[in-house]
């Protein structure tokens, strides 16, 4: 690991003032230290933000929504009463990610800022446009069965690894940013960028920007009775998604009033499908309409390599997630959160 300056500011303005070229914010470091050990990231200065007061609170907002400080730990958020009551799919997504040890350390802001898990990005001997612009993409003709099927480019076929961010985009979460020009909001859907010709520009953040909080709108609580997160992994626990989906329905009188759908593991950003949501809005919940929604969500998908299977897998994961959401949010999260191996009444195990 390359050495670095270490500073520990106690206010947000001090942190931003210290964030010059070559500087990186450090929260828990569960992703950053791993990247630094591998030489993938080589910051000159670490700005440890963990001692800035006030960033570790979860506050209820006047609209019934929640404001979650950037330093709230994943485990604390997943077991928060308001989250479990109003946004249970977020708790399920958080608990399906990483391990208990990592969830105790990892923060909300860090989760939003985590980097792709593309093995070529991690291997400094490989060409990677995201790590080193202009060097090429060894994933494109390499081992790429887990890579992107939506929104990829010849420059980069990496996926965004977060589980947490998938229900967040479905629920119109907003990131609060403090920067050199003051405070502003970025909808989570716009925070992560598709690669295009500049995969090294991963987010909409400007130099010096610090995520200070995440807001969940109160109106998203309308989906609390019918929402699930489903994640297919190559092992049952402690693995990134091959494909995942957040599905949420606002049902009344035998009809779907509105629906929210997002996919994980398919693109360089958590992928919301408004076309699928429109098909569901106003319809009666049925396998046929869920199937049409799943078809619509994957309409633009194309394999970036040896991963055509992920397109059909994503359709089935969506269909299954919608079926589980329609059956109702379980009273208690299943023993294996988000796993297709959970036995939940109403969910088909052969979808």
């Amino acid at each position, binding site marked *: *690991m390359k*050495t*670095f*300056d*270490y500073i*520990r500011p106690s206010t947000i303005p001090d942190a931003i003032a210290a964030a010059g070229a070559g500087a990186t914010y*450090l929260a*828990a*470091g*569960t992703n950053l*230290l*791993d990247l630094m*050990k591998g030489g993938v990231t080589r910051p000159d200065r*670490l700005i*440890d933000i*963990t001692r800035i007061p006030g960033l570790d609170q979860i506050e209820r907002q006047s609209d019934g929504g929640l404001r979650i400080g950037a330093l709230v730990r994943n*485990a604390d958020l997943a*077991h928060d009463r308001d989250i479990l009551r109003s946004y249970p799919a977020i708790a399920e997504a958080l608990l399906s990610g*990483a*391990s*208990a*040890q*990592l969830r*105790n*350390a990892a923060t909300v802001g860090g989760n939003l800022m985590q980097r792709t898990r593309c093995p070529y990005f991690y291997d400094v001997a490989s060409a990677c446009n995201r790590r080193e612009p202009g060097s090429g993409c060894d994933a494109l003709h390499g081992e790429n069965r887990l890579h992107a099927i939506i929104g990829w480019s010849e420059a980069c076929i990496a996926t965004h690894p977060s589980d947490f961010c998938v229900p967040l985009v479905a629920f119109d979460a907003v990131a609060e940013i403090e920067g050199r020009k003051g405070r502003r909001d970025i909808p989570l859907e716009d925070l992560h960028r598709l690669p295009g010709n500049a995969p090294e520009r991963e987010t909409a953040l400007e130099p010096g920007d610090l995520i200070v909080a995440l807001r969940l709108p109160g109106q998203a609580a309308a989906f609390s009775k019918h929402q699930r997160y489903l994640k297919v992994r190559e092992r*049952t*626990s*402690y693995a990134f998604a091959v494909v995942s989906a957040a599905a949420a329905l606002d049902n009344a009188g035998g009809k779907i009033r509105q629906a929210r759908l997002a996919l994980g593991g398919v693109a360089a950003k958590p992928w919301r499908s408004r076309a699928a949501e429109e098909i569901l809005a106003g319809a009666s919940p049925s396998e046929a309409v869920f199937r049409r929604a799943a078809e619509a969500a994957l309409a633009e998908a194309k394999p970036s390599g040896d991963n055509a299977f992920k397109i059909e897998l994503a359709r089935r994961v969506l269909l299954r997630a919608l079926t589980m959401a329609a059956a109702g949010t379980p009273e208690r999260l299943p*023993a*294996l*959160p988000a796993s297709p191996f959970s036995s939940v009444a109403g969910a088909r195990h052969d979808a």
Partner: protein
Amino acid sequence: MNFSISLTVNGEKRNVELDDPRVTLLDLLRERLDLTGTKKGCDRGQCGACTVLVNGKRINSCLALALSHDGAEVLTIEGVAHGDELHPVQAGFIAFDGFQCGFCTAGQIMSAIGLINEGHAGDDPERIREAMSGNLCRCGAYLGITEAVLDAQKKLTAAGRRDAA
């Protein structure tokens, strides 16, 4: 640049001078404080061998910068027994064959203590297996590990009830 940090490790206040900001909490414990019970497996947060409790919560000490933990309270495997009396989780690992080679064991035990403190798994073996998934055991002693955790949890819960009575 020199940094001075102070930690409480297994109940004892320790002041450490660091000449390098790169030291992880794991390396600080093993190389600076000679607490080698905590093991370095992958050093990348994938195996759980380095699990310790920081302020009562289990974390991977290999992915924790020592400097960030200035002022923290750390519990390692060296601090869980009371003299010659083993912690119920340690005793459970022996009684139920929760290990073979033993390399992952310190991390498994610290993770199990953290899991029991968290109190979310109850006596459901499936929830315990899921909550222990951050600790790999290449010998495959998982069956014994799950039984050891269930047994220790039962004993600690009973002891807690006696204390409350």
